[in-house]
């Protein structure tokens, strides 16, 4: 994996059913999205690590569509490790996703596209 480009690695891990984020070896800071350098310090000491998979909904919205297209959720989840990412919270109507909900990562494999990281509600706040 070490000779694979950052973004390529991210999608490769997902395709293998694995959720990985980067961490700076020196500072311990977790980093998302995947990149070559640790933001702020500029050090090229990022390593791929396995996060807990747990996080909280930091904000949420719904992409409203005209029928027959279904509405869908867009959320920002803050991982317990610190970084935030754009994602989708699934398993409940998109408008019922609430800020503060505890969520757990899952890799979704749509039949028509590449594997993506989504979240399921862990417990109600």
């Amino acid at each position, binding site marked *: 994996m070490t000779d694979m480009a950052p973004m390529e690695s991210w999608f490769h891990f997902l395709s293998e059913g694995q959720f990985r984020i980067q961490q700076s070896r020196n500072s311990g800071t977790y980093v998302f999205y995947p990149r070559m350098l640790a933001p702020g310090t500029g050090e090229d000491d990022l390593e791929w690590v396995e996060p807990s998979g747990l996080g909280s909904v930091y*904000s949420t*919205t*719904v*992409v*409203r569509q005209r029928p027959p297209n279904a509405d869908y959720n*867009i959320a*920002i989840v803050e991982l317990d490790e610190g970084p935030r990412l*754009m*994602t989708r919270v699934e398993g409940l109507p998109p408008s019922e996703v609430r*800020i503060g909900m505890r969520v757990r990562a899952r890799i979704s494999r749509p039949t028509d596209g590449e594997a993506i990281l989504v979240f399921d509600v862990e417990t109600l706040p």
Partner: protein
Amino acid sequence: MSGQMRRGSTAIVGAATYGNGEMKGYEALDLAAQASRLALADAGIKLSEVDGLFVCLPQDFLSGLSLAEYLGLHPKITDNNRTGGSAFLTHTELASLALDAGLCDVVLIAYGSNQRTMSGKVVSAFGASRIEQPYKPMIPLSAYALAAARHMYQYGTTSEQLAEVAVSARKWANLNPEAFARGPLTIEDCLAKRVVADPLRVSDCCLVTDGAAAIVMTRADRARDLAKKPIHLLGAAAATSHSQIAQMPDLTVTAAKESGARALAQAGLSIHDVDIVELYDAFTINTILFLEDLGFCPKGEGGRFVQGGRIAPGGELPVNTNGGGLSCTHPGMYGLFLLVEAVRQLRGEAGERQIADTNIALCHGNGGVLSSQATNILGTPQTV
């Protein structure tokens, strides 16, 4: 080194808009060129005198070159800085420094877009990144909805308060013959509109129009001898906090906090000295966020601040006096229109919507998804 521009050393001496609304068949450059002609005529300066050109068109990455060619200019300085809709408020900052240093003598800053009649939907030079694209967010709409949702969660801001921003903008637009969306609009009307991205409704979103704007800047010594009252740049500052919405450090705090404080410090003014405010209202939440971050009210109080018509005509703080992006015009990037409206108000040319005794205007531009923030403080000659 002072680390700042010389307060008031340059001025806006010409300002114009053109083609607001629908201009079917015209290219963006056609509209930008006409606005440029009108702004130069307003200043009483010949096109051939322009030796600094600042431009940013949404669909044209090299628009600085395109407009120079179209107008037959050979500028000494061609700046195509694109930080989104805030770009034009960074153009004035850099133009002022270049003018003051004598690198050029006459600066034209221009914009034009045919996005309404060309496509009927928002044309954006940016969209979701590779990492966000799989989730199919509507960028920029989803991003501003996420910010609004967080503000509501953290501070109890309500849909009624967001609607009050839209209603205030419409009341200003109703006084502006140039505004695209005119007619009655109540809070109840807004709340009855379709939700497009929770919690935002159609009425929380800016217009999609065609249109163009341009301004002309010179050094203060020349500005003094021109036909119209020069409007001086007293302070200008910008700040960037992120690019993608998920990377914004705090969805309820924008970098307007930094740009506003630095621009006011340059101008030697406090927020209480500001007579009129022109804010980039791509969505109703923007107005609330910027009023807070610029210091007109404490963080979290923006929703309550706008209630009761405080920012509407007759209210204690005139905000977006042309009707804003929500009801006047929004041809893809709105930044330059903020400056044109401020110039008209400070010159006393704003007709029915004119605010009496106006000497200081604060213009605030926003780019990307609350990513780039740029503040300009403008003043009449007596404030220099």
